[in-house]
């Protein structure tokens, strides 16, 4: 299991602080921990080196070593610098559209997710009252045009369809003409996937850029990319004038250090993040959240946010009351299960908890939650208020009523008791607000 970076750095510094003053050498020891974390997250080697040099300078300048919590302070500096490098204020900025039609051009390596992203971007724009036209100009890969057409249709978007012959520039021109004639105000250009060593294809991109004059030229990067992210992004950045980056496949469990590499070498902010296969799974990029993810601190913000979205205020209040009175009944347990289900796929929720590594294939089973709810629903109010009355014959009745087995009922009760213990730990001694702060507000 990946230990949180804050803890690791904290320990490094704590060990040393007992000798008295924390020195520069101690800082360097902490920076080595950060270096390791960044490299393991796939941040480019040289990017890491430059980054740490800046962090070191900042940390010394801000005298974090003299503070009472040097470990946390170092992490703060690292985080701030990460956020800055990922685009700072400009991260997650919406598309800046100009021209009629406005042309948005997507470029990137093969398999990075350009076409899928086009569908998502188009859907986003359509939702803002725009009339986008998808223009496939990848004439190299078999069925690439067809893929764009199908993606566009699935997203309910208009598409400039053709048979894949001709030239990319010719097809792009046609699409723009077509857009003008039909009142489309945005053209989304889906270019061919590139392996950037191929100068010929790079030249094609440059010619496209000159011809269509895009107001946004976005580089699509796969979040799972390793050290190569630096090299490919640099090559694209040298050939065309990028205005932003879209990071795809962030719904995987890669730490996503590629984001940092790409932002560092292209010098443009990350604007969007692809977070799933569905057509609306595109979000404005959140630099702070990404910084935490790269550092292995978990997507705490993401967890809190999705919890906030799902967690009902009143339910939260009731729960908190239950916690404060130190009574956590099966009713409360059922409410909790419902809330958890609303937060989204359980694996996704767990993936956001720092340290809670989801063992794949483990029992993160949504159906289990449904079964649990069914079992509790089959209980009488008296049983829900006090589980101790549940003797053998009651359990048998409940199993029959909920279409489960007595073993299932037993399992539920066991889990409930464990949860109750946890709740007591959370809720004891007037700290009842803590749980609520985590899940509610």
């Amino acid at each position: 299991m990946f230990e949180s970076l804050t803890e690791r750095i904290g320990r490094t510094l704590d060990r040393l602080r007992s000798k008295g003053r924390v020195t520069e050498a101690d800082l360097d020891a902490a920076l080595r921990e950060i270096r390791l974390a960044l490299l393991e997250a796939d941040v480019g080697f040289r990017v890491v080196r430059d980054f740490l040099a800046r962090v070191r300078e900042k940390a010394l300048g801000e005298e974090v070593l003299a503070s009472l919590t040097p470990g946390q302070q170092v992490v703060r500096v690292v985080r701030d610098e990460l956020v800055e490098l990922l685009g700072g204020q400009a991260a997650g900025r919406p598309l800046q559209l100009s021209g009629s039609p406005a042309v948005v051009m997507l470029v990137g390596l093969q398999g990075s997710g350009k076409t899928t992203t086009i569908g998502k971007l188009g859907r986003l724009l359509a939702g803002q009252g725009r009339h986008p036209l998808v223009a496939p100009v990848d004439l190299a890969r078999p069925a690439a045009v067809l893929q764009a057409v199908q993606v566009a249709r699935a997203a309910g978007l208009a598409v400039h369809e053709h048979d894949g012959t001709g030239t990319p520039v010719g097809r792009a021109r046609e699409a723009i003409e077509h857009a003008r004639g039909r009142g489309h105000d945005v053209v989304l250009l889906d270019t061919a996937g590139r392996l950037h060593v191929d100068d010929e294809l790079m030249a094609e991109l440059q010619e496209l850029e000159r011809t269509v004059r895009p107001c946004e030229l976005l580089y699509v990067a796969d979040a799972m990319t390793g050290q190569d992210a630096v090299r490919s992004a640099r090559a694209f950045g040298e050939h065309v004038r990028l205005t932003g980056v879209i990071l795809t496949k962030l719904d995987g469990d890669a730490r996503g250090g590629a984001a940092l590499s790409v932002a560092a070498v292209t010098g443009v902010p990350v604007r969007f993040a692809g977070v799933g296969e569905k057509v609306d799974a595109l979000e404005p990029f959140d630099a702070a959240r990404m910084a935490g993810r790269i550092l292995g601190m978990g997507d705490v913000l993401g967890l809190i946010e999705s919890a906030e979205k799902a967690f009902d205020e009143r339910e939260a209040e009731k729960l908190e009351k239950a916690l404060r009175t130190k009574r956590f009944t099966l009713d409360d347990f059922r409410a909790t299960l419902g809330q958890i289900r609303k937060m989204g796929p359980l694996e996704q929720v767990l993936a956001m908890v720092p340290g809670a590594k989801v063992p794949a294939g483990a029992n993160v089973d949504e159906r289990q939650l449904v079964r649990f709810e069914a079992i509790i629903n089959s209980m009488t109010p008296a049983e829900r208020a006090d589980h101790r009355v549940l003797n053998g014959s009651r359990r048998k009745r409940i199993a029959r009523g909920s279409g489960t087995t007595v073993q299932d009922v037993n399992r539920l009760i066991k889990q409930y008791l464990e949860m109750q213990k946890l709740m007591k730990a959370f809720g004891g001694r007037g700290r009842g607000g803590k749980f609520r702060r985590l899940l509610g507000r």
Partner: protein
Amino acid sequence: MLFRRSRNGKDGSPGLRERLRRGLARTRSRLGAGLRRLAPRGRRVDDALLDEVEELLVEADLGVDLATELREVLAREARGRELTGPEALAELVRRHLVDMLPAPSAPRPVAEPPRVTLVVGVNGSGKTTTTGKLAARWAADGRRVTVAAADTFRAAAVEQLVAWAERAGAQVVRSQPGADPAAVAFDAARAARARGADELLVDTAGRLHNRKPLMDELAKIGRAVAKEIPEAPHETLLVLDGTVGRNAIEQARQFARVVPVTGLVLTKLDGTARGGVAVAIGRELGLPVRYVGVGEGIDDLLDFDVDEYLEGLLAPDGDPQAAEAGA
């Protein structure tokens, strides 16, 4: 030529050699040219040099752990010694890398054709292209090939595969978009047997390894094929994008949990990618690399050979352009 083609070099066109050279020069030059540059004759093996070697290894996606381990081994064996020539350091690194990689396992015997190969991987790694290239290669060897288009999810995946299969002269079993992929695989297994095919290739939809429902679906595809052909799949290839980083290890681990992965395919090695993470996967999970994709043409899938691969990774004859870019 670094990689030997398994069929008898029917393609004697002058383009082939050049294509291979171009494709592999990148991979080859990284470590090779890098090591050559920093280890000229007579340079002492000191901490600075070891640091640089470690950096090269990390930049080839071998990972910090492996790079550090190699560094320590090199330090033990060579610190303070003078290198006898530019090859000496590369040879040392190469020897230890060979030790780390699993020995290629013998292919599973096929009691009764067809032999079934399941192709799996995350989105965008190059499964469909790999499936198409394998079909072409085996068809060119005179084998009867059936391909199951079991990626019923991604837009136009079936059409892409059909385009490849047509070029290859292979039979395709397909269904409607959104159809149950396990059913497609099952039908294909039945069809392949009925027509006496030698090979059945099953292309599957890309899936992220942390999505349980999709991984369950993959397991079901495996079971569906086995229903018709009991010992299938004989081979399960995990396709990895050559540019992928540390996450590939987790990918391999998770895919191997739901289907019996027998080997890796490293794609897109004609870019700047080096696919060094394969060393880490080989070490940790014992999975050998079976094929490498080095281009977009139908012939650009090559047999993988451990020795030749590392030779390529470390050999001092990389192209000057790449050496410069790495400087």
